[in-house]
């Protein structure tokens, strides 16, 4: 795919390297109102003004000299492509080649003629030597504009075909962007959270429209009075693209202060757009340069913080800026934008891969957690110690051992019920804790007291999380002087989060042992991550009252 793309880009570069014709055009006002001709002695060519003046609402002459050498004759039949505002007649020496509207009659005839016109030079007129190419023009629709005329000279067929060939190639590119736009739009519709896909999709659409608008002139006749509409449209498209692309990168690289930066940046773009309105190429260039500047700064920051993919995108951005700097504008615009869009696509696919990986990891985690929960029931430490105690109780007091077995059955029964779930009612979790305490009181012959406050019975929690904290409390605390270990569970709601606080009141055996090393901490964190995806916090610390565990779930 990259090979094909680079081949396409090469073709575009080659096809567009033909520079515009470089002919010295001079102009002179026609004060004779059509009675005299350009070749009369009054119109001495040396005294004509150079092109670029404002002729207000008068009719004027425009002329250039073309010298045909021997070698040009191979290119017969010859033709001329003209890119110019106004209604005009075109002369080759004294012969009228054709007209583009009627000069001086524009307002009467309506909008006749096109901005881009092609004229055929009959073979018998294309002789070796000096020739005059002359136009008689009026520009009533934009009398206040300076006069500029673009002339391209060559084989008649070629000068018509060349821009169409380029257009065809560029439109293949446009088609690719149209499909990409649709694909990512559908992707976004199916996953509304995927804002980068939406931004990328819009960028592709804008870019598609930009290409179409840019090349429209080669196959849709546009009267010069409508030509600025096209340029305005191109300006607006460039403005939007210049905003969207850096915004996209800022989201992909999680750039801080994004909102503020983009309010300011948007303001700058609008300022450029309004301030330089009318000088279209300059505006487009300034907008594009602002875009590069801010994108490169942001991606550099991302690269500095070792954000994944930032270096590749940075290289792409610099490459596209270099392309823009060194190549002819019409080409560079597409080439450099294509590089940027490829960078965006790269980021999108990299993120997709990352998300897929995270998703797969979450599946694995869920399986593992299910396993761990299962293991809780049958892990030898719990089971064998319980059975040993049970043997002893059986030998000592059949009545008490029956109660012990009941408590054990209850615990197993509850673990069975929850083993497949990721969230269970808090009441079920509390029941699980209580039954564990009952079992442990038979094993350790310690008094365990459970208290809970302010419990919202509608709330859910990942299974065996508080249960694990209670196990920890039993393991890491010994009874206080009163001979009991007390567990206090409290639910509370803050502005940004809900929380559970479990305090184990007893003597902490090793207060300085790191929390991370305590049994089950990993299990708790994995369970919270599974259900709340980074929107949680687990705090575990020694306090004066006893060991405190806090689980915060952010809204």
């Amino acid at each position, binding site marked *: 795919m990259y090979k094909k793309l680079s081949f396409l880009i090469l073709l575009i570069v080659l096809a567009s390297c033909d520079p515009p014709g470089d002919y010295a055009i001079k102009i002179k006002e026609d004060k004779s109102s059509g009675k005299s001709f350009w070749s009369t002695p009054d119109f001495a060519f040396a005294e004509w003004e150079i092109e670029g003046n404002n002729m207000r609402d008068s009719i004027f002459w425009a002329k250039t000299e073309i010298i045909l050498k021997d070698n040009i004759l191979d290119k017969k039949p010859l033709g001329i492509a003209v890119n110019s505002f106004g209604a005009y007649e075109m002369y080759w020496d004294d012969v009228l080649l054709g007209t583009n509207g009627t000069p001086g009659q524009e307002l009467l005839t309506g909008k006749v003629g096109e901005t881009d016109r092609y004229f055929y030079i009959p073979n018998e007129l294309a002789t070796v030597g000096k020739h005059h190419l002359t136009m008689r023009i009026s520009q009533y629709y934009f009398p206040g504009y300076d006069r500029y005329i673009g002339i391209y000279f060559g084989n008649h067929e070629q000068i018509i075909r060349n821009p169409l060939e380029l257009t065809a190639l560029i439109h293949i590119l446009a088609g690719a962007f149209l499909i990409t736009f649709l694909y990512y739009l559908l992707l976004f519709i199916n996953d509304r959270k995927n804002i980068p896909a939406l931004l990328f999709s819009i960028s592709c659409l804008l870019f598609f429209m930009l290409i179409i608008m840019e090349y429209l002139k080669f196959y849709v006749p546009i009267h010069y009075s409508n030509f600025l509409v096209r340029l305005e449209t191109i300006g607006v498209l460039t403005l939007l693209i210049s905003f969207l692309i850096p915004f996209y990168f800022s989201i992909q690289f999680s750039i801080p202060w994004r909102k503020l930066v983009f309010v300011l940046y948007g303001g700058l773009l609008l300022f450029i757009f309004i301030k330089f309105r009318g000088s279209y190429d300059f505006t487009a260039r300034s907008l594009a340069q602002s875009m590069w500047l801010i994108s490169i700064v942001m991606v550099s920051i991302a690269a500095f913080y070792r954000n994944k993919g930032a270096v590749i995108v940075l290289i792409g951005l610099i490459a596209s800026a270099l392309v823009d700097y060194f190549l002819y504008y019409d080409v560079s615009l597409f080439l450099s934008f294509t590089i940027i869009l490829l960078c965006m696509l790269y980021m999108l696919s990299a993120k997709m891969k990352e998300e897929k990986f995270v998703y797969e990891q979450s599946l694995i985690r869920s399986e593992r957690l299910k396993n761990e929960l299962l293991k809780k029931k049958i892990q*030898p*430490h719990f*089971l*064998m*110690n319980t*059975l*040993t*105690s*049970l*043997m*002893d*109780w059986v030998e000592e007091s059949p009545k008490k051992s029956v109660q012990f077995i009941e408590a054990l059955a209850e615990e197993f029964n509850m673990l069975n019920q929850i083993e497949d779930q990721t969230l269970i009612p808090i009441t079920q979790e509390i029941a699980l804790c209580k039954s564990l305490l009952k079992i442990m009181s*038979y*094993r*350790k*012959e*310690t008094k365990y007291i459970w208290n809970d406050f302010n419990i919202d019975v509608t709330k859910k929690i990942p299974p065996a999380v508080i249960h694990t904290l209670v196990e*920890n409390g039993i*393991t*890491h605390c*010994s009874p206080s002087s009163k001979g009991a270990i007390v567990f206090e569970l409290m639910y509370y709601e803050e502005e940004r989060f809900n929380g559970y606080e479990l305090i184990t009141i007893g003597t902490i*055996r090793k207060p300085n042992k790191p929390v991370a090393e*305590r*049994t089950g901490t990993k299990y708790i964190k994995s369970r919270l991550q599974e259900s709340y995806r980074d929107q949680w916090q687990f705090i575990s610390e020694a306090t004066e009252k006893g060991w405190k565990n806090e689980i915060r779930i952010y809204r």
Partner: protein
Amino acid sequence: MQILIIEDELRIAKRLKRMIQTFFRSLLCEVHHVDTLDEGLQFIADHKIDLLCLDLNLNGENGFEMLKQAVAGSFQTIIISAYRERAIEAFEYGVLDFVPKPFTQERIDQAFHRIINEKSAHLSTRYLAIKRKGGIYLIKTEDVLYIKGADVYAELVLKNGITALHNKTLESLVQILSSDFERIHKSYIVNMTEVKGISIEPGSKYSLELNSGEFLPIGRTKYKEIKSKWFE
């Protein structure tokens, strides 16, 4: 006999204590119980004990750390644990027995018989732990050439000529060492894989010739047994 139980479950500790007392019935024995490793280490430092009953999972702490220190002591160690899969490892460190939970009086009796029985139990001990300069070092039993009794200690003579003192008596060591080791004299235990042959000297003095060229005396009462077991 002084016995220490390190066990964090009170019910189980009480059961064990009762069973030990049942076993020793007539013998004078005193059983102590602590429920954390730290307390256990402190108790061993302050008292002379003959036997340690150790649980391998204590309040979430790994009892193996404790085990390494315990096996270097003069007393024997019996593991009482739920983790059967760690039995082999425990034996390699030189414990006298590994009693899996849940246990019965019969199983406890079987373990404690090893204490009063002087004969080797032919265990799979692979390491002997010695205390030196405040640290615990593990010596591979296959590196030991012979062991010489020295009062209440034992002197390990290694193949490379180095000697090291072990806190256990020869009586205790012979109980835990593998079948490669034979007590040939009241003061010697020999690694029989390093033996060349028996030599008889005038006056019915028997000695064992080692591959290293050394000669060790064979006890008069042991000669017959050793000859029939190893050289016929």
